Protein backbone atom coordinates (compact mmCIF):
# COMPACT_ATOMS: atom_id res chain seq x y z
CA UNK A 1 0.00 0.00 0.00
CA UNK A 2 1.62 3.18 -1.09
CA UNK A 3 0.82 6.55 0.37
CA UNK A 4 2.13 8.48 -2.63
CA UNK A 5 1.77 7.34 -6.22
CA UNK A 6 5.51 7.04 -6.62
CA UNK A 7 7.93 4.21 -6.15
CA UNK A 8 7.85 2.95 -2.62
CA UNK A 9 11.14 3.47 -0.83
CA UNK A 10 11.93 1.13 1.97
CA UNK A 11 13.64 3.22 4.64
CA UNK A 12 15.34 0.22 6.19
CA UNK A 13 17.10 -0.67 2.95
CA UNK A 14 16.27 -4.34 2.65
CA UNK A 15 14.68 -7.46 4.09
CA UNK A 16 17.12 -9.18 6.41
CA UNK A 17 17.36 -6.57 9.22
CA UNK A 18 13.59 -6.30 9.43
CA UNK A 19 13.10 -10.01 9.73
CA UNK A 20 15.70 -10.45 12.42
CA UNK A 21 14.33 -7.57 14.43
CA UNK A 22 10.87 -8.98 14.45
CA UNK A 23 12.21 -12.43 15.11
CA UNK A 24 14.05 -10.89 18.01
CA UNK A 25 10.75 -9.64 19.40
CA UNK A 26 9.29 -13.11 19.34
CA UNK A 27 12.38 -14.79 20.70
CA UNK A 28 11.85 -14.34 24.44
CA UNK A 29 8.37 -15.84 24.16
CA UNK A 30 9.59 -18.67 21.99
CA UNK A 31 12.46 -19.35 24.35
CA UNK A 32 10.09 -19.41 27.27
CA UNK A 33 7.75 -21.82 25.53
CA UNK A 34 10.62 -24.11 24.65
CA UNK A 35 11.92 -24.11 28.19
CA UNK A 36 8.59 -24.53 29.92
CA UNK A 37 6.49 -26.36 27.41
CA UNK A 38 8.58 -28.35 24.95
CA UNK A 39 11.11 -29.55 27.51
CA UNK A 40 8.41 -30.61 29.99
CA UNK A 41 6.61 -32.61 27.32
CA UNK A 42 9.90 -34.28 26.50
CA UNK A 43 10.36 -34.91 30.21
CA UNK A 44 7.01 -36.70 30.26
CA UNK A 45 8.28 -38.97 27.51
CA UNK A 46 11.51 -39.52 29.37
CA UNK A 47 9.63 -40.57 32.49
CA UNK A 48 7.17 -42.72 30.55
CA UNK A 49 10.01 -44.63 28.96
CA UNK A 50 12.28 -44.57 31.97
CA UNK A 51 12.44 -46.54 35.18
CA UNK A 52 11.55 -46.18 38.82
CA UNK A 53 13.70 -46.07 41.93
CA UNK A 54 12.70 -49.24 43.79
CA UNK A 55 12.96 -47.81 47.29
CA UNK A 56 11.31 -44.44 47.07
CA UNK A 57 9.29 -45.05 43.93
CA UNK A 58 10.46 -41.83 42.36
CA UNK A 59 10.67 -41.73 38.58
CA UNK A 60 14.08 -42.07 36.98
CA UNK A 61 13.73 -40.52 33.56
CA UNK A 62 15.70 -41.82 30.62
CA UNK A 63 16.88 -38.77 28.70
CA UNK A 64 18.58 -40.53 25.84
CA UNK A 65 16.02 -41.80 23.33
CA UNK A 66 18.22 -44.77 22.64
CA UNK A 67 17.82 -45.97 26.22
CA UNK A 68 14.05 -45.81 26.27
CA UNK A 69 12.22 -48.76 27.76
CA UNK A 70 8.81 -49.28 26.24
CA UNK A 71 7.58 -52.07 28.51
CA UNK A 72 5.41 -49.88 30.72
CA UNK A 73 3.84 -48.32 27.64
CA UNK A 74 3.27 -51.70 26.06
CA UNK A 75 1.48 -53.13 29.09
CA UNK A 76 -0.53 -49.94 29.34
CA UNK A 77 -1.59 -50.20 25.71
CA UNK A 78 -2.61 -53.79 26.35
CA UNK A 79 -4.89 -52.54 29.07
CA UNK A 80 -6.27 -49.76 26.90
CA UNK A 81 -7.06 -51.85 23.86
CA UNK A 82 -9.24 -54.61 25.12
CA UNK A 83 -8.61 -54.19 28.80
CA UNK A 84 -10.16 -52.33 31.66
CA UNK A 85 -8.58 -48.99 30.80
CA UNK A 86 -10.31 -49.10 27.45
CA UNK A 87 -13.51 -48.81 29.43
CA UNK A 88 -12.27 -45.62 31.04
CA UNK A 89 -11.43 -44.12 27.65
CA UNK A 90 -14.82 -45.10 26.28
CA UNK A 91 -16.53 -43.64 29.30
CA UNK A 92 -14.52 -40.44 29.00
CA UNK A 93 -15.42 -40.10 25.33
CA UNK A 94 -19.06 -40.79 26.18
CA UNK A 95 -19.15 -38.16 28.92
CA UNK A 96 -17.44 -35.60 26.73
CA UNK A 97 -19.71 -36.10 23.77
CA UNK A 98 -22.83 -36.17 25.90
CA UNK A 99 -21.68 -32.96 27.53
CA UNK A 100 -20.96 -31.50 24.11
CA UNK A 101 -24.45 -32.41 22.98
CA UNK A 102 -25.78 -30.64 26.04
CA UNK A 103 -23.63 -27.61 25.31
CA UNK A 104 -24.87 -27.46 21.73
CA UNK A 105 -28.48 -27.93 22.73
CA UNK A 106 -28.28 -25.12 25.25
CA UNK A 107 -25.56 -22.99 23.75
CA UNK A 108 -26.60 -22.77 20.11
CA UNK A 109 -30.02 -21.22 20.74
CA UNK A 110 -28.52 -18.80 23.24
CA UNK A 111 -25.65 -17.80 20.96
CA UNK A 112 -28.02 -17.50 18.00
CA UNK A 113 -30.40 -15.33 19.94
CA UNK A 114 -27.77 -12.97 21.24
CA UNK A 115 -25.95 -12.79 17.92
CA UNK A 116 -28.84 -12.24 15.60
CA UNK A 117 -31.98 -11.38 17.45
CA UNK A 118 -31.41 -9.46 20.62
CA UNK A 119 -30.97 -5.93 19.41
CA UNK A 120 -31.83 -4.01 22.51
CA UNK A 121 -30.45 -6.17 25.28
CA UNK A 122 -27.38 -7.44 23.47
CA UNK A 123 -24.89 -5.46 25.51
CA UNK A 124 -26.29 -6.65 28.78
CA UNK A 125 -26.69 -10.23 27.59
CA UNK A 126 -23.11 -10.27 26.40
CA UNK A 127 -21.94 -9.04 29.75
CA UNK A 128 -23.97 -11.76 31.46
CA UNK A 129 -22.56 -14.37 29.11
CA UNK A 130 -19.02 -13.27 29.77
CA UNK A 131 -19.56 -13.14 33.52
CA UNK A 132 -18.99 -16.87 34.13
CA UNK A 133 -15.46 -16.45 32.78
CA UNK A 134 -14.67 -14.17 35.66
CA UNK A 135 -16.22 -16.51 38.18
CA UNK A 136 -13.87 -19.25 39.22
CA UNK A 137 -14.74 -22.62 37.70
CA UNK A 138 -14.45 -24.31 41.06
CA UNK A 139 -16.69 -21.75 42.66
CA UNK A 140 -19.38 -22.56 40.13
CA UNK A 141 -18.91 -26.26 40.92
CA UNK A 142 -19.03 -25.44 44.62
CA UNK A 143 -22.30 -23.62 44.01
CA UNK A 144 -23.59 -26.59 42.12
CA UNK A 145 -22.69 -29.06 44.91
CA UNK A 146 -24.34 -26.81 47.46
CA UNK A 147 -27.51 -27.02 45.43
CA UNK A 148 -27.26 -30.77 44.92
CA UNK A 149 -26.94 -31.71 48.57
CA UNK A 150 -29.56 -34.04 49.95
CA UNK A 151 -31.32 -31.13 51.63
CA UNK A 152 -30.30 -28.59 49.02
CA UNK A 153 -32.46 -26.43 46.80
CA UNK A 154 -32.51 -28.69 43.75
CA UNK A 155 -34.24 -31.44 45.69
CA UNK A 156 -36.52 -28.92 47.32
CA UNK A 157 -37.58 -27.40 44.01
CA UNK A 158 -38.04 -30.74 42.32
CA UNK A 159 -40.19 -31.97 45.17
CA UNK A 160 -42.19 -28.75 45.16
CA UNK A 161 -42.76 -29.16 41.44
CA UNK A 162 -43.77 -32.72 42.27
CA UNK A 163 -41.35 -34.21 39.78
CA UNK A 164 -39.98 -36.37 42.59
CA UNK A 165 -41.49 -37.36 45.91
CA UNK A 166 -38.38 -38.14 47.90
CA UNK A 167 -35.06 -36.31 47.97
CA UNK A 168 -32.63 -37.90 45.61
CA UNK A 169 -28.99 -38.28 46.34
CA UNK A 170 -27.39 -36.52 43.39
CA UNK A 171 -23.87 -36.80 44.65
CA UNK A 172 -23.55 -40.54 44.99
CA UNK A 173 -21.77 -41.22 41.76
CA UNK A 174 -24.14 -41.45 38.84
CA UNK A 175 -23.14 -40.26 35.43
CA UNK A 176 -25.97 -37.73 34.89
CA UNK A 177 -24.60 -35.59 37.68
CA UNK A 178 -21.17 -35.61 36.10
CA UNK A 179 -22.46 -34.84 32.61
CA UNK A 180 -24.65 -32.02 33.88
CA UNK A 181 -21.70 -30.75 35.87
CA UNK A 182 -19.49 -30.78 32.79
CA UNK A 183 -22.13 -28.97 30.77
CA UNK A 184 -22.58 -26.41 33.49
CA UNK A 185 -18.86 -25.85 33.74
CA UNK A 186 -17.96 -25.71 30.07
CA UNK A 187 -20.96 -24.21 28.29
CA UNK A 188 -19.73 -20.59 28.74
CA UNK A 189 -16.55 -21.58 26.86
CA UNK A 190 -18.75 -22.91 24.10
CA UNK A 191 -21.17 -20.03 23.75
CA UNK A 192 -18.75 -17.16 23.30
CA UNK A 193 -16.78 -18.39 20.27
CA UNK A 194 -20.04 -19.58 18.74
CA UNK A 195 -21.56 -16.16 19.32
CA UNK A 196 -18.60 -14.49 17.61
CA UNK A 197 -18.94 -16.79 14.61
CA UNK A 198 -22.70 -16.38 14.34
CA UNK A 199 -22.42 -12.63 14.64
CA UNK A 200 -20.10 -12.53 11.68
CA UNK A 201 -22.50 -14.24 9.30
CA UNK A 202 -23.43 -11.72 6.68
CA UNK A 203 -27.01 -10.64 7.34
CA UNK A 204 -27.53 -9.90 3.69
CA UNK A 205 -27.31 -13.57 2.82
CA UNK A 206 -30.15 -14.32 5.18
CA UNK A 207 -32.19 -11.43 3.86
CA UNK A 208 -31.62 -12.68 0.36
CA UNK A 209 -33.02 -16.05 1.30
CA UNK A 210 -36.09 -14.47 2.83
CA UNK A 211 -36.57 -12.18 -0.15
CA UNK A 212 -36.55 -15.20 -2.41
CA UNK A 213 -39.54 -16.57 -0.52
CA UNK A 214 -38.10 -19.05 1.94
CA UNK A 215 -39.74 -19.27 5.34
CA UNK A 216 -37.79 -18.27 8.41
CA UNK A 217 -37.27 -21.89 9.29
CA UNK A 218 -36.02 -22.87 5.81
CA UNK A 219 -33.70 -19.91 5.74
CA UNK A 220 -32.25 -21.02 8.99
CA UNK A 221 -31.77 -24.62 7.90
CA UNK A 222 -30.37 -23.88 4.45
CA UNK A 223 -28.44 -20.67 4.97
CA UNK A 224 -27.67 -19.85 8.57
CA UNK A 225 -26.95 -23.34 9.81
CA UNK A 226 -24.45 -24.28 7.10
CA UNK A 227 -22.71 -20.93 7.47
CA UNK A 228 -22.40 -21.49 11.18
CA UNK A 229 -20.85 -24.93 10.89
CA UNK A 230 -17.20 -23.78 10.95
CA UNK A 231 -17.89 -21.70 14.03
CA UNK A 232 -19.76 -24.58 15.62
CA UNK A 233 -16.88 -26.95 14.97
CA UNK A 234 -14.34 -24.53 16.35
CA UNK A 235 -16.38 -23.87 19.47
CA UNK A 236 -16.89 -27.61 19.94
CA UNK A 237 -13.21 -28.40 19.62
CA UNK A 238 -12.18 -25.67 21.97
CA UNK A 239 -14.69 -26.95 24.52
CA UNK A 240 -14.01 -30.66 24.41
CA UNK A 241 -10.22 -30.55 24.36
CA UNK A 242 -9.94 -29.42 27.97
CA UNK A 243 -12.85 -31.65 28.96
CA UNK A 244 -10.94 -34.78 28.05
CA UNK A 245 -8.33 -34.09 30.70
CA UNK A 246 -10.81 -33.06 33.34
CA UNK A 247 -10.54 -35.03 36.55
CA UNK A 248 -11.66 -32.56 39.14
CA UNK A 249 -15.26 -32.06 38.02
CA UNK A 250 -16.26 -35.65 38.46
CA UNK A 251 -14.33 -36.26 41.63
CA UNK A 252 -15.66 -33.04 43.11
CA UNK A 253 -19.24 -33.97 42.32
CA UNK A 254 -19.15 -37.60 43.43
CA UNK A 255 -17.31 -38.80 46.50
CA UNK A 256 -15.14 -41.08 44.46
CA UNK A 257 -17.17 -43.51 42.45
CA UNK A 258 -15.64 -46.01 40.05
CA UNK A 259 -18.64 -45.61 37.80
CA UNK A 260 -17.70 -42.11 36.76
CA UNK A 261 -13.94 -42.44 36.53
CA UNK A 262 -12.35 -40.59 33.63
CA UNK A 263 -8.91 -40.80 32.10
CA UNK A 264 -7.74 -37.81 34.10
CA UNK A 265 -8.47 -39.61 37.38
CA UNK A 266 -6.39 -42.60 36.36
CA UNK A 267 -3.53 -40.28 35.38
CA UNK A 268 -3.72 -38.57 38.72
CA UNK A 269 -3.78 -41.88 40.58
CA UNK A 270 -0.71 -43.24 38.85
CA UNK A 271 1.27 -40.07 39.14
CA UNK A 272 0.49 -39.02 42.64
CA UNK A 273 -0.78 -42.00 44.53
CA UNK A 274 1.13 -44.97 43.20
CA UNK A 275 4.58 -46.40 42.80
CA UNK A 276 4.47 -46.40 39.01
CA UNK A 277 4.80 -42.85 37.71
CA UNK A 278 5.97 -44.19 34.37
CA UNK A 279 2.51 -45.67 33.79
CA UNK A 280 0.97 -42.31 34.59
CA UNK A 281 3.28 -40.54 32.19
CA UNK A 282 2.56 -43.15 29.51
CA UNK A 283 -1.16 -42.59 30.02
CA UNK A 284 -0.64 -38.86 29.48
CA UNK A 285 1.09 -39.62 26.19
CA UNK A 286 -1.70 -41.96 25.12
CA UNK A 287 -4.25 -39.25 25.89
CA UNK A 288 -2.32 -36.77 23.81
CA UNK A 289 -2.22 -39.17 20.90
CA UNK A 290 -5.97 -39.64 21.11
CA UNK A 291 -6.47 -35.91 21.08
CA UNK A 292 -3.88 -35.31 18.40
CA UNK A 293 -6.35 -35.29 15.53
CA UNK A 294 -8.54 -32.73 17.25
CA UNK A 295 -5.57 -30.58 18.14
CA UNK A 296 -4.25 -30.63 14.59
CA UNK A 297 -7.66 -29.76 13.20
CA UNK A 298 -7.92 -26.79 15.51
CA UNK A 299 -4.40 -25.59 14.77
CA UNK A 300 -4.87 -25.80 11.02
CA UNK A 301 -8.17 -23.96 10.96
CA UNK A 302 -6.89 -21.26 13.29
CA UNK A 303 -3.75 -20.70 11.31
CA UNK A 304 -5.68 -20.61 8.05
CA UNK A 305 -8.00 -18.00 9.52
CA UNK A 306 -5.06 -15.98 10.74
CA UNK A 307 -3.42 -16.06 7.35
CA UNK A 308 -6.65 -15.05 5.62
CA UNK A 309 -7.34 -12.17 7.93
CA UNK A 310 -3.80 -10.88 7.58
CA UNK A 311 -3.69 -10.98 3.82
Amino acid sequence: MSSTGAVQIDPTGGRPPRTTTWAGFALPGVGWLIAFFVVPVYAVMAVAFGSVDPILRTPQPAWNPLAWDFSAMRSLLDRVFGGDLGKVFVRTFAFVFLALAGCIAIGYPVAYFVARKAARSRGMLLALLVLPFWISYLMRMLAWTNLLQQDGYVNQVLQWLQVMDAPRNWLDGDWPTVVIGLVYGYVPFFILPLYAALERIDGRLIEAGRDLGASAFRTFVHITLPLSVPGLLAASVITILPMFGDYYTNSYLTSGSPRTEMVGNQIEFFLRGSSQPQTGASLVLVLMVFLFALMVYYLRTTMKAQRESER
Partner: protein
Amino acid sequence: MTSRRRLFRNRHGRARWLALITWLYVMWSLLPVLVAVRISLNSGKSRSTFQAPSFRWYWGDPTSSVWHDDSLHSALWNTLRLAGLCMVIATPLGVAMAIGLQRWRGRLSRGANTLMLVPIVTPEIVFGVALFIVFTQVYTGLPGGLTTQLLGHVTFTMSFVVVIIRGRLTAIGSQFEEAARDLGASRFQALRLVLLPMLGPAIFASLMVVFATSVDDFVISSFLSTGASTETVPIKIYSGARAGSTPALNALATVMLLVTLLAVVFASLVMRRMRAHGDTSASLSGITV
Protein backbone atom coordinates in the same frame (compact mmCIF):
# COMPACT_ATOMS: atom_id res chain seq x y z
CA MET B 1 -48.80 -9.31 2.01
CA THR B 2 -50.51 -11.94 4.11
CA SER B 3 -47.59 -14.33 3.91
CA ARG B 4 -45.24 -11.59 4.97
CA ARG B 5 -47.37 -10.73 7.97
CA ARG B 6 -47.41 -14.40 8.91
CA LEU B 7 -43.66 -14.48 8.54
CA PHE B 8 -43.41 -11.41 10.67
CA ARG B 9 -45.51 -13.00 13.36
CA ASN B 10 -43.48 -16.19 13.15
CA ARG B 11 -40.27 -14.30 13.60
CA HIS B 12 -41.54 -12.65 16.71
CA GLY B 13 -42.89 -15.95 18.00
CA ARG B 14 -39.67 -17.80 17.51
CA ALA B 15 -37.61 -15.01 18.95
CA ARG B 16 -39.78 -15.14 22.05
CA TRP B 17 -38.89 -18.78 22.62
CA LEU B 18 -35.23 -18.08 22.00
CA ALA B 19 -35.37 -15.14 24.33
CA LEU B 20 -36.91 -17.34 26.99
CA ILE B 21 -34.23 -19.99 26.55
CA THR B 22 -31.53 -17.37 26.71
CA TRP B 23 -32.78 -15.75 29.88
CA LEU B 24 -33.36 -19.16 31.46
CA TYR B 25 -29.80 -20.04 30.59
CA VAL B 26 -28.48 -16.84 32.11
CA MET B 27 -30.37 -17.56 35.30
CA TRP B 28 -29.22 -21.19 35.39
CA SER B 29 -25.69 -20.03 34.83
CA LEU B 30 -25.58 -17.32 37.47
CA LEU B 31 -28.16 -18.11 40.12
CA PRO B 32 -26.20 -20.96 41.70
CA VAL B 33 -23.36 -18.54 42.27
CA LEU B 34 -25.73 -16.12 43.96
CA VAL B 35 -26.96 -18.96 46.14
CA ALA B 36 -23.38 -19.84 47.04
CA VAL B 37 -22.76 -16.23 47.98
CA ARG B 38 -25.91 -16.23 50.09
CA ILE B 39 -24.77 -19.36 51.91
CA SER B 40 -21.50 -17.65 52.69
CA LEU B 41 -23.59 -15.30 54.79
CA ASN B 42 -25.05 -18.23 56.72
CA SER B 43 -24.90 -18.13 60.48
CA GLY B 44 -24.91 -21.91 60.78
CA LYS B 45 -22.58 -24.60 59.46
CA SER B 46 -24.83 -25.90 56.71
CA ARG B 47 -23.57 -25.60 53.16
CA SER B 48 -26.87 -26.51 51.60
CA THR B 49 -29.57 -24.43 53.21
CA PHE B 50 -29.63 -20.90 54.40
CA GLN B 51 -30.47 -20.38 58.03
CA ALA B 52 -29.89 -16.83 59.14
CA PRO B 53 -27.68 -14.01 57.88
CA SER B 54 -24.38 -13.27 59.52
CA PHE B 55 -20.80 -12.36 58.66
CA ARG B 56 -19.54 -15.19 60.80
CA TRP B 57 -17.55 -16.86 58.06
CA TYR B 58 -15.97 -13.65 56.86
CA TRP B 59 -14.57 -12.31 60.08
CA GLY B 60 -16.83 -13.36 62.93
CA ASP B 61 -15.78 -16.90 63.73
CA PRO B 62 -12.48 -16.75 65.65
CA THR B 63 -10.96 -19.90 64.17
CA SER B 64 -12.63 -20.73 60.88
CA SER B 65 -13.50 -17.43 59.27
CA VAL B 66 -11.57 -16.14 56.30
CA TRP B 67 -10.12 -13.34 58.37
CA HIS B 68 -8.91 -15.60 61.16
CA ASP B 69 -8.12 -18.89 59.50
CA ASP B 70 -4.50 -18.62 58.42
CA SER B 71 -4.76 -21.25 55.75
CA LEU B 72 -7.69 -19.48 54.09
CA HIS B 73 -6.23 -16.06 53.90
CA SER B 74 -2.84 -17.34 52.93
CA ALA B 75 -4.61 -19.05 50.03
CA LEU B 76 -6.20 -15.72 49.11
CA TRP B 77 -2.88 -13.91 49.27
CA ASN B 78 -1.12 -16.62 47.24
CA THR B 79 -3.76 -16.46 44.54
CA LEU B 80 -3.58 -12.69 44.22
CA ARG B 81 0.21 -12.65 44.29
CA LEU B 82 0.43 -15.32 41.61
CA ALA B 83 -2.11 -13.59 39.40
CA GLY B 84 -0.45 -10.20 39.76
CA LEU B 85 3.03 -11.46 38.95
CA CYS B 86 1.66 -13.53 36.09
CA MET B 87 0.02 -10.46 34.58
CA VAL B 88 3.24 -8.51 34.76
CA ILE B 89 5.34 -11.23 33.14
CA ALA B 90 3.02 -12.87 30.66
CA THR B 91 1.64 -9.70 29.11
CA PRO B 92 4.90 -8.07 27.93
CA LEU B 93 6.20 -11.43 26.74
CA GLY B 94 2.96 -12.04 24.89
CA VAL B 95 2.77 -8.57 23.35
CA ALA B 96 6.34 -8.80 22.11
CA MET B 97 5.71 -12.25 20.75
CA ALA B 98 2.53 -11.17 18.99
CA ILE B 99 4.20 -8.22 17.32
CA GLY B 100 7.19 -10.34 16.38
CA LEU B 101 5.17 -13.24 15.03
CA GLN B 102 2.96 -11.06 12.92
CA ARG B 103 5.83 -9.38 11.12
CA TRP B 104 8.33 -12.18 10.99
CA ARG B 105 8.12 -13.97 7.68
CA GLY B 106 9.32 -17.41 6.93
CA ARG B 107 8.93 -20.99 7.94
CA LEU B 108 10.53 -20.60 11.33
CA SER B 109 7.88 -18.03 12.05
CA ARG B 110 5.13 -20.45 11.20
CA GLY B 111 6.77 -23.02 13.45
CA ALA B 112 6.91 -20.52 16.27
CA ASN B 113 3.28 -19.64 15.66
CA THR B 114 2.26 -23.27 15.89
CA LEU B 115 4.30 -23.64 19.05
CA MET B 116 2.44 -20.70 20.51
CA LEU B 117 -0.95 -22.17 19.66
CA VAL B 118 -0.34 -25.64 21.03
CA PRO B 119 -0.69 -24.71 24.73
CA ILE B 120 -4.19 -23.41 24.05
CA VAL B 121 -5.35 -26.82 22.93
CA THR B 122 -3.40 -28.86 25.43
CA PRO B 123 -5.51 -30.24 28.30
CA GLU B 124 -4.44 -28.80 31.62
CA ILE B 125 -3.66 -32.18 33.12
CA VAL B 126 -0.95 -32.65 30.51
CA PHE B 127 0.48 -29.29 31.54
CA GLY B 128 0.27 -30.15 35.20
CA VAL B 129 1.97 -33.50 34.81
CA ALA B 130 4.65 -32.19 32.47
CA LEU B 131 5.50 -29.22 34.65
CA PHE B 132 5.52 -31.34 37.80
CA ILE B 133 7.94 -33.78 36.22
CA VAL B 134 10.17 -31.09 34.80
CA PHE B 135 10.44 -29.17 38.04
CA THR B 136 11.27 -32.27 40.05
CA GLN B 137 13.60 -33.90 37.52
CA VAL B 138 15.18 -31.17 35.41
CA TYR B 139 14.94 -27.68 36.82
CA THR B 140 15.48 -28.85 40.35
CA GLY B 141 17.26 -25.74 41.52
CA LEU B 142 14.13 -23.65 41.54
CA PRO B 143 12.32 -23.03 44.81
CA GLY B 144 9.06 -24.88 44.80
CA GLY B 145 5.67 -23.37 45.35
CA LEU B 146 5.16 -19.81 44.20
CA THR B 147 8.07 -19.73 41.75
CA THR B 148 7.20 -22.92 39.91
CA GLN B 149 3.50 -22.15 39.98
CA LEU B 150 4.23 -18.74 38.49
CA LEU B 151 6.35 -20.20 35.74
CA GLY B 152 3.56 -22.64 34.94
CA HIS B 153 0.90 -19.94 34.91
CA VAL B 154 2.90 -17.68 32.62
CA THR B 155 3.48 -20.51 30.15
CA PHE B 156 -0.19 -21.30 30.14
CA THR B 157 -1.49 -17.75 29.76
CA MET B 158 1.06 -16.29 27.39
CA SER B 159 -0.64 -17.81 24.36
CA PHE B 160 -3.92 -16.10 25.20
CA VAL B 161 -2.15 -12.75 25.23
CA VAL B 162 -0.56 -13.44 21.85
CA VAL B 163 -3.87 -14.39 20.30
CA ILE B 164 -5.68 -11.34 21.62
CA ILE B 165 -2.96 -8.94 20.59
CA ARG B 166 -2.59 -10.49 17.17
CA GLY B 167 -6.30 -10.13 16.56
CA ARG B 168 -6.04 -6.48 17.39
CA LEU B 169 -2.90 -6.00 15.30
CA THR B 170 -4.69 -7.41 12.29
CA ALA B 171 -7.61 -5.09 12.84
CA ILE B 172 -5.34 -2.07 13.21
CA GLY B 173 -3.34 -2.81 10.10
CA SER B 174 -0.03 -1.26 9.21
CA GLN B 175 -1.11 2.10 7.83
CA PHE B 176 -0.58 4.10 11.00
CA GLU B 177 2.93 2.91 11.52
CA GLU B 178 3.76 3.45 7.90
CA ALA B 179 2.39 6.96 8.11
CA ALA B 180 4.60 7.61 11.10
CA ARG B 181 7.61 6.22 9.29
CA ASP B 182 6.85 8.37 6.27
CA LEU B 183 6.91 11.32 8.60
CA GLY B 184 10.41 10.41 9.68
CA ALA B 185 10.04 8.20 12.76
CA SER B 186 12.35 5.22 13.15
CA ARG B 187 10.86 1.76 13.32
CA PHE B 188 11.06 1.62 17.07
CA GLN B 189 9.68 5.07 17.53
CA ALA B 190 6.72 4.17 15.33
CA LEU B 191 6.21 1.09 17.43
CA ARG B 192 6.46 2.85 20.75
CA LEU B 193 4.61 6.04 19.95
CA VAL B 194 1.97 4.84 17.52
CA LEU B 195 1.33 1.13 17.76
CA LEU B 196 1.56 0.51 21.47
CA PRO B 197 -0.91 3.23 22.43
CA MET B 198 -3.30 1.88 19.83
CA LEU B 199 -2.89 -1.54 21.35
CA GLY B 200 -3.78 -0.11 24.73
CA PRO B 201 -7.27 -1.57 25.04
CA ALA B 202 -6.10 -4.96 23.81
CA ILE B 203 -3.21 -4.95 26.27
CA PHE B 204 -5.63 -4.18 29.02
CA ALA B 205 -7.92 -6.94 27.85
CA SER B 206 -4.96 -9.33 27.92
CA LEU B 207 -4.07 -8.27 31.45
CA MET B 208 -7.58 -9.08 32.54
CA VAL B 209 -7.67 -12.43 30.77
CA VAL B 210 -4.33 -13.41 32.29
CA PHE B 211 -5.55 -12.34 35.71
CA ALA B 212 -8.78 -14.30 35.45
CA THR B 213 -7.09 -17.38 34.03
CA SER B 214 -4.43 -17.41 36.69
CA VAL B 215 -6.89 -16.86 39.52
CA ASP B 216 -9.03 -19.70 38.24
CA ASP B 217 -6.24 -22.17 37.61
CA PHE B 218 -6.51 -25.35 39.62
CA VAL B 219 -4.65 -28.15 37.92
CA ILE B 220 -1.26 -26.52 37.49
CA SER B 221 -1.27 -24.89 40.92
CA SER B 222 -2.27 -28.15 42.53
CA PHE B 223 0.38 -30.27 40.85
CA LEU B 224 3.08 -27.73 41.70
CA SER B 225 1.98 -26.89 45.20
CA THR B 226 4.40 -27.79 47.97
CA GLY B 227 2.06 -27.74 50.88
CA ALA B 228 -0.31 -25.62 52.88
CA SER B 229 1.59 -22.37 52.42
CA THR B 230 1.47 -22.60 48.64
CA GLU B 231 -2.15 -23.49 48.17
CA THR B 232 -4.40 -21.22 46.17
CA VAL B 233 -8.09 -20.52 46.49
CA PRO B 234 -9.17 -23.09 43.88
CA ILE B 235 -7.13 -25.76 45.66
CA LYS B 236 -8.76 -24.86 48.96
CA ILE B 237 -12.22 -25.04 47.43
CA TYR B 238 -11.45 -28.39 45.86
CA SER B 239 -10.03 -29.98 48.98
CA GLY B 240 -12.87 -28.49 50.96
CA ALA B 241 -15.23 -30.89 49.30
CA ARG B 242 -13.41 -33.83 50.77
CA ALA B 243 -12.50 -32.80 54.27
CA GLY B 244 -15.06 -31.28 56.56
CA SER B 245 -15.90 -27.83 55.36
CA THR B 246 -17.96 -24.88 56.37
CA PRO B 247 -19.42 -21.88 54.58
CA ALA B 248 -16.05 -20.25 55.15
CA LEU B 249 -15.17 -21.78 51.80
CA ASN B 250 -18.11 -19.99 50.19
CA ALA B 251 -16.93 -16.82 51.87
CA LEU B 252 -13.45 -17.28 50.47
CA ALA B 253 -14.81 -17.86 46.98
CA THR B 254 -17.04 -14.81 47.30
CA VAL B 255 -14.14 -12.61 48.32
CA MET B 256 -12.22 -13.82 45.28
CA LEU B 257 -15.26 -13.17 43.12
CA LEU B 258 -15.57 -9.62 44.41
CA VAL B 259 -11.89 -8.94 43.79
CA THR B 260 -12.17 -10.22 40.23
CA LEU B 261 -15.34 -8.26 39.52
CA LEU B 262 -13.80 -5.08 40.89
CA ALA B 263 -10.78 -5.64 38.68
CA VAL B 264 -13.01 -6.15 35.65
CA VAL B 265 -15.07 -3.04 36.35
CA PHE B 266 -11.91 -1.00 36.88
CA ALA B 267 -10.38 -2.36 33.69
CA SER B 268 -13.42 -1.67 31.59
CA LEU B 269 -13.61 1.90 32.84
CA VAL B 270 -9.97 2.40 31.96
CA MET B 271 -10.45 0.76 28.59
CA ARG B 272 -13.40 2.91 27.74
CA ARG B 273 -11.34 5.98 28.34
CA MET B 274 -8.40 4.60 26.41
CA ARG B 275 -10.37 3.59 23.40
CA ALA B 276 -9.99 6.36 20.84
CA HIS B 277 -11.29 4.44 17.88
CA GLY B 278 -14.30 2.20 18.32
CA ASP B 279 -13.90 -1.48 17.59
CA THR B 280 -15.49 -4.01 19.86
CA SER B 281 -15.14 -7.69 19.16
CA ALA B 282 -11.47 -7.91 18.20
CA SER B 283 -10.46 -9.79 21.33
CA LEU B 284 -12.98 -12.60 20.79
CA SER B 285 -12.27 -13.07 17.14
CA GLY B 286 -8.71 -13.94 17.88
CA ILE B 287 -9.53 -17.30 19.45
CA THR B 288 -12.11 -18.41 16.96
CA VAL B 289 -12.24 -19.23 13.29
